[in-house]
């Protein structure tokens, strides 16, 4: 069984949300990125989203962009991502889901990419700027190597399209919580429950809520409305605000608080 499916199954049995912190390859530094990821695992992460930097990340807000830029300035390459996945995989059995924009993947080759990340121990792939209708080649390459290509839903997605997106979805649906880019927000949108219900009617695939999830109370409101949540910018903000020697522990402490509310 794909580790993503297994993770949702065991979370469901425990009436928990699947909590997926986001880490950037090469951030805070090339050396400490794996350390940060493993600290999240230790703190109770159920899944990791592993972001591969891109020069022009149009779906990301300033925080994730900054981490991406720091990583690129550090000379990060796709091979660093494969290496990072492999090193995390040697320490844990939770699902690992790399995320990145389509252009670097296209240059590397979708098939080579799927082969490499699968061999390194990944379970799926998130590409925020590829829509299902343009994804035949990348989806086929992923399927060949046992990886799930994750699909997206947005608050603006009409019901009819939600059904189309949901019908071929594998692993989970990445539910963008708000119209907007990634980034911490004080509170979740008022129409979030209705939107998540719409997604739930369109598909039985688990719903992972992302964009704007930062606090334990956000997770508590998601119980019964979604099956999991992705946390990115809030953690990077903590790393950025902490002295270098304390950033990893401070961010991991926040993951521990989130895990308690999941």
């Amino acid at each position, binding site marked *: 069984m794909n580790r993503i499916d297994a993770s949702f199954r065991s979370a469901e049995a425990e009436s928990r949300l699947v909590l997926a912190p986001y880490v950037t390859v090469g951030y805070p530094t090339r050396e400490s990125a794996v350390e940060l990821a493993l600290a999240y695992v230790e703190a109770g992460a159920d899944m990791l989203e592993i972001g591969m930097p891109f020069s*022009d990340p*149009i*779906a990301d807000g300033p925080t994730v962009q900054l981490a991406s830029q720091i990583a690129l300035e550090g000379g990060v390459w796709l091979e660093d991502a494969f290496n990072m996945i492999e090193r995390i995989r040697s320490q844990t059995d939770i699902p690992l889901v790399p995320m990145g924009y389509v252009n670097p993947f296209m240059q590397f080759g979708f098939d080579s990419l799927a082969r490499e990340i699968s061999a390194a121990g990944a379970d799926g792939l998130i590409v925020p700027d590829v829509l299902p209708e*343009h994804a035949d080649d990348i989806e086929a390459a992923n399927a060949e190597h046992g990886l799930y290509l994750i699909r*997206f839903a*947005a608050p603006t997605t009409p019901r009819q399209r939600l059904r189309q997106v949901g019908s071929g979805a594998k692993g989970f649906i990445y539910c963008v919580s708000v*119209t907007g*880019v990634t980034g911490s927000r004080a509170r979740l949108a008022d129409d979030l429950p209705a939107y998540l219900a719409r997604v739930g009617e369109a598909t039985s695939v688990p719903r992972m809520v992302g964009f704007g999830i930062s606090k334990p109370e956000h997770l508590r409101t998601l119980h019964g409305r979604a099956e999991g949540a992705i946390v990115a910018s809030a953690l990077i903000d903590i790393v950025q605000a902490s002295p270098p020697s304390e950033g990893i522990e401070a961010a991991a402490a926040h993951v521990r608080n989130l895990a308690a509310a999941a």
Partner: protein
Amino acid sequence: MLETRALPDASGYYGPFGGRYVPETLVAALDELEASFQRHHRDPAFVAELENLLHFYAGRPTPTYHAARLSEQLGGAQVYLKREDLAHTGAHKINNALGQGLLARVSGKRRVIAETGAGQHGVASATVCAMLGLDCVVYMGEEDVHRQALNVARMRTLGAEVISVTSGTRTLKDAINEALRDWVTNVENTFYLFGSATGPHPYPKIVREFQRVIGREARAQIQQLSGGLPDTVVACVNGGSNAIGIFSAFIEDPDVALIGVEAGGRGGEQGEHAATVESGTPGILHGARSLLLQDEGGQIIGTHSIAAGLDYPGVGPELAYLHHVGRTEFATFGDADALDALELLARTEGIIPALESAHAVAGAIRMASETSSDRVILVNLSGRGDKDMETIAAQLGTRG
């Protein structure tokens, strides 16, 4: 004969280029835009209003002018200029801004965003929004804010908010990133008035259709003036809205050569130019599959051109396709060539072109001097040089 009127296909592709590579959040808005464009752009009332504005407001038709002194000095082909520099706001950008502005109005969205490099699309958008009573926010890279300060002042005078973008290379590429982020966030009340023939489907098609007026007019005018079709049509190319606008009327004339001139900047080294067709490779940026300047890992690389409006590491998908099938040729002229051409045109014809358009003039000068005097070269003079006077004065001043 190449039949391109059928392109793009239903998914927005021009052969291997184009498409729609965007976050899911934007799909509904792009579908709505496509439907609105299909419904309105052939609707007689919409067409009549647009033509009325193009005529009485923007000053169309712009003339085609025989640059006789320039041609004589070059001693070769006859050079004709399609005077888009005479359109309201000083460049061809007003054509598309008026068309999309009317689409924004019928959409009911009161807030318009735009990206701009040289500032010409930003000025055109601010102008049209002022005239239609819409709010306007323009994203502009910090570097361009400095080198096109006059256009920033124009936009602000017109009531637009200009947001200086400090991420990445601080030029047009990053302005588009920020505008897309704004649109993703505010898509329910915001219309994205896209200025170049790039971006996700249906923008390349919409921009081409609204810029087609350049070619339509020029084709009739040049026949009247020279007695036939031109041998060559030359336009500067970056995203390519002025080029596709004028080329569109001649694509199906196999004897008319279509030449796009890209910015050679300071030289062929990576980061020193913006010659995307000449040295780019296939990739995906800002929603479309096209040719890009990128490193081998697929990260987008910086560009340089003295012309802020040619300083983008991509090219529109239809131009990439026309190159792919061999219908258009591309040439590269650098900063110094553009300045030389600008000076020559100013001194022989009393016309100071925009630095972008000066690249097309540089191409025409080279071609004219290599061909006989019975040949006809039509140049799209896409904009005027007022916005560039500080740069021009500094550069030409140092030459003494």
